[in-house]
């Protein structure tokens, strides 16, 4: 495909996505689409690090911080989410730096890095549960309904508005992905993921580059948590933080393909449709089944399709694309 053709395809696809809620108004389907878009953004955020071998199981923590800080500031201080969300993101960013700096400075990599981040997830979950007087603990938390000015409270009842917000956030995630993908930082991080000493010998400040991408990833994930909370108007520690959310991110990103920009989105489509199918087909009898299926599929994918569904499909298409004359 020529670059003009690709641009046109993107333009048409985008126009169709924006127009969709105005022609198609089934609230349940729109709800599913909103969820897919928000989680796609969350999975994209995770993949910002994951694609460079920085496998984090701490992202549930960042998501939880984003969601809870925003909601707590609104309920207790009446602070609008327009300010609360940036504060929640900053808090998650600070947390990311606090955990990331010692890890990167002292070269905690691979499995050990995974374990440290796993602890982060667990700690955030415990803190939310333990401070139940403020956060509602494991029973969950609901932002107070705004009586007036819903825009200020970032609370909307109609699905169309939320669909457009989620679409914008998802697009922003893709834009950030492409921005990183084209930057020199992408080359540096690929190099770091292969060989830290050789990257340093090329002049790369390994610690700084890793911290940068971790910060970006954490900020994005916190935003995903806050948007999810504002949309659902209800969060529990289990839905936005903790290890199961972190694992779900890893699973979705790997299944979709974490080395291509739309891979995490494909992962979100699959995981959410799977969860919904199980929920509708089996009801309460199937609670937790999705996690079981995730686990089995994760093992199968890592063994047989490590580049994920979209990654593998694009790879199959590649030779054909190269054969066609390119400008």
């Amino acid at each position, binding site marked *: 495909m020529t670059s003009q053709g690709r641009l046109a395809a993107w333009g048409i696809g985008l126009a169709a996505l924006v127009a969709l809620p105005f022609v198609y108004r089934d609230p349940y389907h729109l709800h599913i689409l909103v969820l897919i878009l928000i989680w796609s953004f969350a999975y994209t955020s995770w993949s910002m690090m994951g694609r460079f071998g920085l496998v984090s199981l701490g992202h549930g923590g960042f998501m939880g911080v984003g969601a809870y800080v925003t909601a707590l500031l609104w309920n207790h201080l009446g602070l609008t989410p327009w300010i609360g969300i940036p504060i929640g993101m900053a808090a998650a960013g600070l947390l990311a730096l606090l955990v990331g700096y010692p890890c990167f400075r002292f070269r905690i990599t691979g499995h050990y890095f995974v374990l440290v981040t796993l602890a982060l997830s667990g700690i955030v979950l415990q803190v939310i549960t333990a401070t139940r007087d403020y956060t509602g603990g494991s029973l969950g938390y609901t932002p107070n309904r705004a009586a007036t000015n819903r825009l200020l409270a970032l609370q909307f009842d109609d699905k169309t508005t939320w669909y457009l917000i989620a679409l914008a956030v998802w697009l922003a995630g893709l834009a950030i992905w492409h921005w990183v993908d084209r930057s*020199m930082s992408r*080359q*540096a991080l*690929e*190099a770091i*993921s*292969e*060989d830290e*000493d*050789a*990257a*340093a*010998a*090329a*002049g*790369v*400040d*390994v610690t700084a580059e890793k911290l940068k991408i971790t910060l970006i990833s954490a900020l994005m994930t916190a935003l995903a948590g806050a948007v999810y909370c504002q949309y659902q108007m209800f969060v529990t520690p289990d839905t936005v933080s903790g290890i199961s959310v972190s694992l779900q991110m890893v699973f979705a990103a790997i299944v979709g393909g974490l080395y291509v920009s739309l891979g995490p989105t494909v992962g979100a489509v699959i995981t959410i449709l799977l969860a919904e199918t199980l929920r509708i087909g089996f009801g309460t009898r199937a609670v937790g089944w999705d996690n079981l299926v995730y686990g089995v599929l994760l093992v199968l994918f890592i063994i047989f399709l490590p580049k994920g569904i979209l990654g593998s499909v694009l790879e199959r298409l590649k030779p054909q694309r190269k054969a066609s004359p390119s400008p």
Partner: protein
Amino acid sequence: MLEVQGLVKRFGGFTAVNNVSFRVDRGEILGLIGPNGSGKSTIFNMLSGTQAPTSGSIVFAGAEIGGLAPHRIINGGIGRTFQIPRPFRRLTIFENVSLAGFYGQGRHSRAKAEQAAERALAMVGLPTDRHAAVDGLGAAGLKKLELAKALATGPRLLLADESLGGLDEAEMDQAADMLRKIRDDLGITIIWVEHIMGVLMRVVDRVMVLDHGEKISEGSPSAVAGDPRVIEVYLGTDAETTQAAAAEARRRVGG
């Protein structure tokens, strides 16, 4: 240009480098030889920041650099290659080198980095094609890429670590000529660590010999090649081998 004083590196109870001092003058090629485990690579790792010295000082261009982070040393004007080439296989050949051009020279601009990459690739004789993959390179190609990466960081001092291992004789001669050309054309000072003594002797201005972490000899190639201590520790004590190797070294040097 480089002044090393009393350099020591210990790993637990083992002393890898013991009180080594030397200097390198601008525009010089210094050869660093010694048997396996004599401390050559450890010295390189300390000069390039990969390992911090236990004690001693390393002064480069008037500033102490001992114990600095590697990226700061690289940005300060020292470039290095690794004994076994360490390319980034997930990047193209061009990206490998432009990465070094970007991060090794203060991250100024991408355009400048790409120019530096083109110059470095042309210098070592690799194609400047933007899409060529690292996997297409053989042993000699990987050595060239390693050198191009180091050159792209814009060094005033190049640390070349055993760049000839795994090459055939013609390739070795080419590589040796390459290092001389880098010094002559680009004015880059070079410290060259090498196992293969003959080729090294032909190119370097001065040689330093290490054994068990200590400096045992230093001087012109012909003087060092004739030093009985060097012949004993470096070439072994088997009389026939020693004589043959010494003769070969003298033939190479032309003395």
